[in-house]
């Protein structure tokens, strides 16, 4: 065990830090994960990812032949930490970078990798995830969107829902039913669909935050080339789960939690209760520590998993807990901040008197969305129990 970084890694960190200090956009893009997304905003968001990519700080671990740098995961984690530290805006190409990219690297054909991966890095193609449907959420494998093979094409009909970012996505990785007769897990295929294909309609849905974050997507006789199939026909469920694995690690990532805790602590120090800062209130003080302990445990837990990854150890139950614990913790942090603010928590983000630039009301809601999205906490517990602890299936 040795938690020191090498001098090369430290030098790399300094370089990243200096780059971010110089280049993080100070206006027009926010470090909160808000989604007020017009055309102009989108252009700025893509430009930011492009700049970061040109500097060599996006998806560092990807293979060189697809635009990556084949760097070790330690460098990637250094960049992630520095991005959080610099309060850099999140990357618009997140779904491609965090979910589809790693999936294609394991499951895609050579042609698919060459075709799609480089444009994920440059933000030329933004991806969205077409999994959930009106009748299929937690029970994802019951999905009904149909794809029939006609010649060398799939003809897709059906509907997806809660599709984040579909309003500005160029491409969708999508689960479709290709064999309605087979048992539900064995008739699903994983295909890649260009969003501008005729027959696709995107209808935005307004989230509780007031933003247009996710959408309904309708498919009416949409033609998709057969070469857009990932892995084998009717074997999409395994690929879907590979993507979910990456998604859950992304959503449960500890890197933002520490920063958020420090923001909460700083807030609590400025709030007076009974003539003293809230951090001196014996009850709230204990609560803050409970949160910090969980945050620190998750930070160290991520380092342990990074080490396992470097050592080539297969991820086990320790990584199954990330999504559940990480998203619940982020929501708990924001909830504590709302309670700390007392009746000032009534103020919406837009109000000029909102504390801490209105960060918390938005974060409080947004973080609850992530407790649901990517498989709810209940579903995570089912997975941990059944796959991790090998408890008997309910069905």
């Amino acid at each position, binding site marked *: 065990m040795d938690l020191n970084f090498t001098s090369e890694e430290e030098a790399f960190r300094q370089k990243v830090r200096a780059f971010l200090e110089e280049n993080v956009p100070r206006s027009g893009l926010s470090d909160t994960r808000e989604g007020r997304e017009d055309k102009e905003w989108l252009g700025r968001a893509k430009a930011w990812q492009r700049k970061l990519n040109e500097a060599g700080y996006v998806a560092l671990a990807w293979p060189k032949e697809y635009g990556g740098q084949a760097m070790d995961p330690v460098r990637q984690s250094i960049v992630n930490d520095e991005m959080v530290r610099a309060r850099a805006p999140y990357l618009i190409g997140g779904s491609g970078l965090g979910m589809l990219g790693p999936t294609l690297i394991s499951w895609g054909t050579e042609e698919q990798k060459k075709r799609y991966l480089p444009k994920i890095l440059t933000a030329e193609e933004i991806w969205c995830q077409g999994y959930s449907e009106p009748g299929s959420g937690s029970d994802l494998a019951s999905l009904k969107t149909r794809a029939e093979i006609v010649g060398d094409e799939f003809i897709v009909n059906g509907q997806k829902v809660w599709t984040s970012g579909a309003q500005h996505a160029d491409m969708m990785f999508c689960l479709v039913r290709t064999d309605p007769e087979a048992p539900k897990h064995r008739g699903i295929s994983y295909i890649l669909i260009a969003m501008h294909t005729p027959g696709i309609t995107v209808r935005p849905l307004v989230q509780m935050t007031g933003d247009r974050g996710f959408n309904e997507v309708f498919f009416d006789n949409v033609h998709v080339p057969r070469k857009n199939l990932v892995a084998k026909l009717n074997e999409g469920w395994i690929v879907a789960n590979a993507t979910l694995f990456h998604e859950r690690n992304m959503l449960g990532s500890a890197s933002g939690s520490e920063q958020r805790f420090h923001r909460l602590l700083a807030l609590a120090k400025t709030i007076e209760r009974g003539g003293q800062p809230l951090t001196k209130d014996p009850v709230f003080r*204990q609560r803050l*520590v409970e949160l910090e302990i969980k945050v620190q*445990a998750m930070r160290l837990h991520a380092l342990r998993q990074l080490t396992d990854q470097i050592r080539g150890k297969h991820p086990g139950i*320790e990584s199954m807990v990330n999504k559940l614990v990480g998203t619940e913790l982020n929501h708990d942090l924001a909830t504590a901040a709302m309670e700390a603010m007392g009746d000032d928590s009534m103020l919406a983000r837009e109000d000029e008197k909102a504390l801490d630039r209105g960060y918390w009301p938005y974060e409080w809601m947004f973080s609850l969305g992530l407790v649901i999205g990517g498989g709810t906490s*209940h579903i995570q*517990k089912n997975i941990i129990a059944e796959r991790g*602890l*090998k*408890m*008997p299936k309910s069905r």
Partner: protein
Amino acid sequence: MDFGLSEEQQQLKDSARALLTHECPTTEVRKVMASDGYPRALYEQVAKLGWNGLIVPEQFGGAGLGMLEMAMLLEEGGYAAMPGPFLFSSAIATGALKLVRSSEPTGKWLKAIAEGKAIGTVAINDRTGSIDPRDLTTIATKNGEALRINGVKSNVPYAEIADFIVVVARDLSSPELWLGVVEKNAPGVTIKPRKNLDLTRRIASVELEGASAVRLPGEGLYAKLVDIGALAIAADSLGGMERALEMAVEYSKVREQFGKPIGSFQALKHAAAEIVSELEPARSLLWYAAYAFDAGLPDASRYIAMAKARLCDIYARGSDRAVLMHGGIGFTWEHDMHIWFKRARFNESYFGSPAFHRERVAALGGY
């Protein structure tokens, strides 16, 4: 950056698991619970393997390893509900003696521990049941190089069989708490065994009436002793929780109700998933705390306090839920579940409550 166990550390842990599975099954634990809480045959075996002197410096015949390695053994001891003074003697009392740089006056005790010839323990709590320095009242007066100690220490593990006791006492003239080593057979020392809940451990009151003690030289030793004790208990809690969870999960696969294994019911699945979701990140926390302690990092105390608070909370609550998951059988004396349930309660209160350690985290973090 490498945050994982080394091959040697993993081997140490695996060999401890194998040994205790074989030599310390619950049938043995129960025999010891019914007698004096000290499994002598088992201790002779682990002495041969060098467990006693694991953290004793090499110059005194030990292996010279650190608290991270010790945590591996303690975790396995917790897993097996290993009875006896090992944790108190070879981790805590030994750790206290090691705080002194010179070989005087600790060398002879360290040597005896490494050879398996002596057992030590620590006496902290006065009548209030708290390790907060403000609640410690036992008085030490200087008598040349030695101390004379007056007070009544409560709930001292294995005082009856210990050869020496590290006693925490204060001089009225300064706020500093001293650590003094009292030989158990010295005049003025009276041991009164208590009846305790967790029968895998034994405790006693220690009455000190002008008992003579050797003062351990150095400053701020008490805070370091708290670190060592908290770390040891956190490691034991990790292993204990792992075992209690494993028992509940295994039972849920075989016990049937409503025509199905009870483990197929979500209430049980979610309870088990919640425990493991807390426990695995807490394991990472413990590793870092032990690593930071061994490396002498400035944040060691803070992380140890985090690990102690977190793991003892998880163990106390988790073992409670593990009893529930067993239903009526879990409430019997005959079933083994209560062994861990009671150890969890001991751990939660020994060496500072979770709330006490959270307050340390806040204070050290400048909240």
